[in-house]
């Protein structure tokens, strides 16, 4: 686990309000795995901002982060330019469990939840199918990156790009036709809940990446609670930063 400033190599704004950064941080990249996240300091703000690892280039030592401006902290971060330094704490949390690349996988990303799935798609390559959902054509991100890694279906709520509708019908079709051993998903809670319910009806493992407001990011302050249910039915609060952000779908209790 590392905490220091690293240099920004490049900054892009693929669609308005979404930023795509590459940061040179070889030590961090060496330790990191897909589905983990980093915790970024935003100027003098008291809390860091958690952002998922989108891509890891072990050759160049570059970390890629893709995030949307939601509030003041991400706005401040988006003002950083190539050459500036970003104060990063990471890699943090438990990432996705990647099966033998021979296995078949489906990744389902919703909106700004797509970035953490890119490295998963790359891991499985052609044996992966990506289903990416967005509100509308103008919100579509990373579709090219996914398409060059694996089979990719884009869904939009308004049908302005790809298939009209949510990711659920496309996922159901994939569960029936493509028969993956595992499904990985990240996105808004209602989407994750739908995927959890759908996958429960199929003989498929499912891992969800969750979000929760964070303090320390390392498991010490217990603020990032997420309700889970153990096999014996007992409920508990696990912590997204340490026990997650990736959880087995059947252990998550959506409230």
């Amino acid at each position, binding site marked *: *686990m590392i*905490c220091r400033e690293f240099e920004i190599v490049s900054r892009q704004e693929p669609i308005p309000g979404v930023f795509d950064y590459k940061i040179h941080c070889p030590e961090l990249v060496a330790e990191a795995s897909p589905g983990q996240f980093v915790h970024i*300091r935003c100027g*003098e*703000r*008291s*809390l*860091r901002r958690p952002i998922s690892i989108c891509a890891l280039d072990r050759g160049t030592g570059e970390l890629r982060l893709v995030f949307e401006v939601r509030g003041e*902290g991400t706005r401040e971060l988006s003002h950083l330019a190539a050459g500036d330094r970003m104060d990063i*704490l990471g890699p943090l949390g438990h990432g996705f469990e990647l099966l033998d690349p021979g296995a078949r996988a489906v990744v389902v990303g919703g909106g700004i939840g797509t970035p953490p799935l890119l490295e998963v798609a790359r891991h499985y390559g052609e044996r992966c199918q990506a289903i990416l959902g967005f509100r509308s054509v103008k919100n579509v991100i990373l579709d090219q990156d996914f398409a060059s890694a694996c089979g990719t279906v884009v869904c939009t709520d308004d049908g302005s790009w790809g298939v009209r509708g949510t990711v659920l019908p496309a996922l159901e079709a994939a569960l029936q036709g493509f028969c993956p051993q595992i499904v990985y998903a990240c996105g808004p809670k209602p989407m994750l809940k739908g995927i959890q319910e759908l996958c429960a009806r199929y003989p498929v493992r499912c891992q969800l990446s969750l979000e*929760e*407001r*964070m*303090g*320390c*990011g*390392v*498991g*010490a*302050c*217990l*603020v*990032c*609670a*997420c*309700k889970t249910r153990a096999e014996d039915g007992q*409920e*508990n*609060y696990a912590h997204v930063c*340490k026990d997650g952000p990736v959880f087995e779908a059947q252990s998550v209790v959506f*409230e």
Partner: protein
Amino acid sequence: MANLSVNIAGVTLKNPVITASGCFGFGREYEDFYDISRLGGISLKGMTAKKRLGNPPPRIAETPAGMLNSVGLQNPGVDAFLRDDLPYLKTKDTVLIANIAGSTVEDYCEIASRLADSEVDLLELNISCPNVKEGGVAFGVSCEGAAGVVRAVKRHARQPLLVKLSPNVTDIVSIAKAVESEGANGISLINTLLGMRIDIERRRPVLYNNVGGLSGPAVFPVAVRMVWQVANAVKVPVVGMGGIASAKDAIEMMMAGASAVQVGAAMFSDPMAPVKIIEGMESWLSGHGIADVGEIVGTVRPWS
């Protein structure tokens, strides 16, 4: 090299910097960053007799120069602590402070008894948690409540007892005196100030618990004031906290009268904060030709 060691209620700390309860778990999380034996002490996550789940999320909100939390004392219970965490912590060379909480006076006594034979060095009676429905701060806001629980716990406690006070009171001094007269061996303050934030788009409190405890630099001036008032009114040592983020803040708190300090929220933006504070104090003292950190305690000279 200035001498940084201090003595709190008969226990010697190698330096006056303690990580604050609830902000450092049971210590494991920060060992990747530095050797936690460098700390003067660790105030452990608030413990209850039985396991507690805590409050539903969201449990944290950002505020100007601070944050609100509403964790609500999530913890595995004292027995799990003794079994799973204490053995690990005892491999570290630092003072261990068990922060204990309860819903009833009996709860407090039970935990104190369970810890009596353990190797924790100090108890910190948390009568100031604003995030639980029963007990907690209820004891900390009246002299009678505070005195009552201290009196009872003193009968069961083997370790020296710090009492952690709530700042959400009209008269912190009389509460401090009340717990001192019941045998408290030290006083730690401040716990968090009760606050609230609202998400104006959703028209909902940011915290599921509606309100939460404010900490971080925003509260520092309130903490300094209360430490100064209390240190001037009691004879037992005071452990000062609330918004300390730098060595200078720690020195200010000690000049106000604190014999040691705790660091909480500052660790969330900088995990290395406690170590930087220890090092910064050392170099400030050396730079000022001060041989022993104890020489600065309570040295602020009021104007009038």
